[in-house]
């Protein structure tokens, strides 16, 4: 089978999954439960994606744990996204130098 066909199918499905609800869900949602659900869903998705995956993100659980601690501390104190993200990476890198 040609690679172009695979890629076309992959891109088509990925686009439809995004575009159909985004385009045709025009109305404001009335249900209080569903509005609340949508309010909480971003936090739930990001939390489920991050934990426990973050501990495997560097290929070494110790460097990843060091990066996680730094990210938690820095985000607790409300530092900007990019500072938190790069500090976590730097912490993982520096910890790796000592292993």
């Amino acid at each position, binding site marked *: 089978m040609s690679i172009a066909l695979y890629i076309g199918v992959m891109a088509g499905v990925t686009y439809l999954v995004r575009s159909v609800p985004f385009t045709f869900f025009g109305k404001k949602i009335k249900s209080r*439960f569903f509005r*609340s659900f949508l309010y909480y869903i971003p936090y739930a998705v990001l939390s*489920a994606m991050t934990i426990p995956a973050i501990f495997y993100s560097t290929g070494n659980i110790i460097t990843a744990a060091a990066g996680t601690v730094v990210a938690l501390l820095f985000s607790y104190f409300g530092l900007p996204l990019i500072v938190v993200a790069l500090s976590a990476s730097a912490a993982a890198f520096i910890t790796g130098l000592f292993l």
Partner: protein
Amino acid sequence: MAKDFSKGALHGVPIALGYLSVSFGFGIQAVRAGLSPLTATIISALNLTSAGQAAGVNIIAAGGTLIEMILVQLTINIRYSLMAISLSQKLDGKFSMPHRLAASYGITDEIFAVCSAQKEPLTPAYMYGMILAAFMGWVSGTALGAAAGELLPYSVSSAMGIVLYGMFLAIIIPPARKQFSVLITVAAAALISIFFRYILTAVSSGFAVIVSAITAAGLAAAVFPVKEEESE
């Protein structure tokens, strides 16, 4: 208009930097799976997603069926449908149907996260600016990784793997600190996700994220319904 675009692009810079490192890894993976650097770059430009692309390349490399491709992409990427519905509730009046069709291309975990953290309604220009920044990071990272991946020391490339997760924590921790209901949502989603990772291991990671998120957000919505102004 131009102001919204540049604001979006600026908010997209951390996303672009994170993508640069992740897509670098994707580029390496795609070339190892036997794809050309050009093919890898085209895949990144068309899909703009990490987990779906990685799984897609594995299917291509293994000579899998198109049905398998469709099911895997649906399972891994269906979370974008939830995000799209959530974002559709806070769009500015300027978001006509053509704009919706265009901007939906760029709904990724990170763009969704940054967009949903905005207080004001989302304009098309704001989203386009952010999508363009993210797109450039994602596509150029793929091309670089595919062309020159083996050159970077492992200590650097592996430490870059945590960048996006660090950004996720920076998005969820401050509101969890301020609002008890968000803290409970985050904790519940994490616990369910851990349960899938270590106990119900047969469930794919994409599907595990969906179930964890829907369960946690559903519980929070039932126990802590939001007031009108909070959900705007």
